[in-house]
């Protein structure tokens, strides 16, 4: 009988251990708390299809940045310039369409090419000079924002694309019934998850962030890994900008201020370590769903939207604290 008790204890302990050993636990718990709170407080507004649609649209916007940021953080670098890139790329696209007269699809492709170049600059300067990525990307955050405001000023440029291409990019798969732009986030997340977990490249990303010198000693080109991660993040940021541009028919150089911090917050809430070597794509998705739920819930509850930032701040501390305390 005693043996049986012991075994049950160990099974429970093991189950608990594996549950608590999962670094997304903080996000899961916080998610549960926030979801329950809104569901109980404003069930008639929160538990609706409209609320879900808003939540998914908001999640897609920052989520594309958050999963790329997670990848970059795992390799132990950070990118503060993505908020500016997010504003810059749609401005490039709309200018190419309106002033140069290029077809939408070509303009979008060229704009994404610009995003890739921006990521490349971040990565090459960070790894080759070398500089801390905090400095490189802080610099480019101001450079791109300054150039964008210099060229396009702070005026909104509207371009209501009615083409099938723009509708699809904007997530309007079935007219205006429900916005499906979340599909882009899911596709990108599946791709990144696959890259991280199922390919040799993913192995190198984790190793680079964990112990860069050891990884290099084992033949991993850690600089290349980091540069590629900067490029992937900048590319996804461009995609996010273009999805929102297609959805709203509007580009403005003042967009996305502070978006980089929200992306970092989502990644960290989802269990990604700022010290590199650990993190998951689904954790970042969970983090961004949590942030989006707060954003939407606060608006629906009729609370001033100014409050929601302080709530997110609290959640960041809560989620990471739960991770830390439970993992020790």
């Amino acid at each position, binding site marked *: 009988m005693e043996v049986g008790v012991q075994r049950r204890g160990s099974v429970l302990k093991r189950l608990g251990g594996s549950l608590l050993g999962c670094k997304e636990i903080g996000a899961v718990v916080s998610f549960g708390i926030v979801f329950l709170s809104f569901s109980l407080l404003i069930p008639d507004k929160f538990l609706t299809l409209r609320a879900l649609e808003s939540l998914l649209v908001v999640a897609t916007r920052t989520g594309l940045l958050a999963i790329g940021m997670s990848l970059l953080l795992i390799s132990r670098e950070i990118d503060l310039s993505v908020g500016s890139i997010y504003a810059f790329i749609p401005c490039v696209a709309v200018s190419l369409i309106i002033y140069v007269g290029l077809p939408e699809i070509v303009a979008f492709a060229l704009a994404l090419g610009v995003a890739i170049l921006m990521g490349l600059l971040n990565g090459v300067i960070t790894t080759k000079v070398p500089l801390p990525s905090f400095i490189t990307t802080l610099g480019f955050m101001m450079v791109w924002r300054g150039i964008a405001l210099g060229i396009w000023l702070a005026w909104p440029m509207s371009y209501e694309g009615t083409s099938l291409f723009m509708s699809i990019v904007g997530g309007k798969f079935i007219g205006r019934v429900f916005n499906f732009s979340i599909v882009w986030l899911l596709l990108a997340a599946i791709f990144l998850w696959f890259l991280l977990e199922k390919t040799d490249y993913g192995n*190198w990303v984790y*190793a680079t962030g*964990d112990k860069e010198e050891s990884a290099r*000693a084992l033949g*991993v080109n850690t600089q290349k890994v980091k540069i590629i991660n900067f490029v992937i993040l900048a590319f996804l940021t461009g995609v996010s900008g273009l999805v929102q541009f297609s959805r709203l028919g509007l580009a403005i150089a003042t967009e996305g201020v502070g978006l980089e911090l929200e992306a970092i917050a989502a990644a960290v809430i989802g269990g990604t370590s700022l010290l590199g070597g650990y993190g998951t794509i689904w954790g970042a998705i969970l983090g961004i769903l949590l942030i989006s739920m707060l954003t939407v819930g606060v608006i629906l509850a009729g609370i001033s939207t100014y409050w929601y930032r302080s709530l997110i701040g609290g959640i960041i501390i809560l989620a990471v604290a739960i991770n830390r305390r439970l993992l020790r």
Partner: protein
Amino acid sequence: MEAKKRPLLEIRNVSKSFKKIRALKNVSFVVYKKEIIGLVGDNGAGKSTLIKIIAGVFPPDEGEICFEGKKVQFSSSKKTRTLGIETVYQDLALFENMNVWRNIFLGKELGECIGPIKFLDSRKMGKESRTIVKKIGLTLPSIEASIRTLSGGERQSLAIGRCLHFGAKLLLLDEPTSALSIKETEKVLESIKKARDLGFSIIFITHNLYHVYPVADRFIVLSHGVKTGDVKKEKIIIEKLAEMIRGHTLV
């Protein structure tokens, strides 16, 4: 003299400076097959620099390295590994958050290449990892267990097993016993001897003479970047060797 075996590794007049500091000055020595070399010296003697040059992490400023009679062209550590020179670093080069098979195959992943991306064959790597773990006498809960759950000795044995599996001819062990308990150290020394008996050559870097003395066949002594001794074990007692490292005895 002529009857001597052909050396596996030959270091000729290697020098290396970092900015204004000369880390190595004109170091030469040879390593034969099935031999354990104790590379000893105090902290800052240039042991780690020398090992990194042999491993191909960076090139020497002067001098050359021959492996199996052929001159080694410096290119990268990856290239050096394909020659058969494997390093087990001080911090083991194991990645704490990654599992056993991901660690064993890091940088040498198995899988199908489609375009620039290689899709991991986790089943094959898991299976081979289990064989490796068995061969070095380890019992692990799971091949999916992350390295952070293993003890220091288990990590060390795993790191050595990884090298043996990949057909290394020369193992470079950088302070393999520095963080281990006495019992675990003994096990690791045992696996080093086993590796030699299987036909591997080993350069064992340490400043702890009591760990290296029982297993080494020959000692190379470094002091301030200069080779100050190259003696067979049967010709020297441990106290004498300690004096050489301190640099008091050479007249």
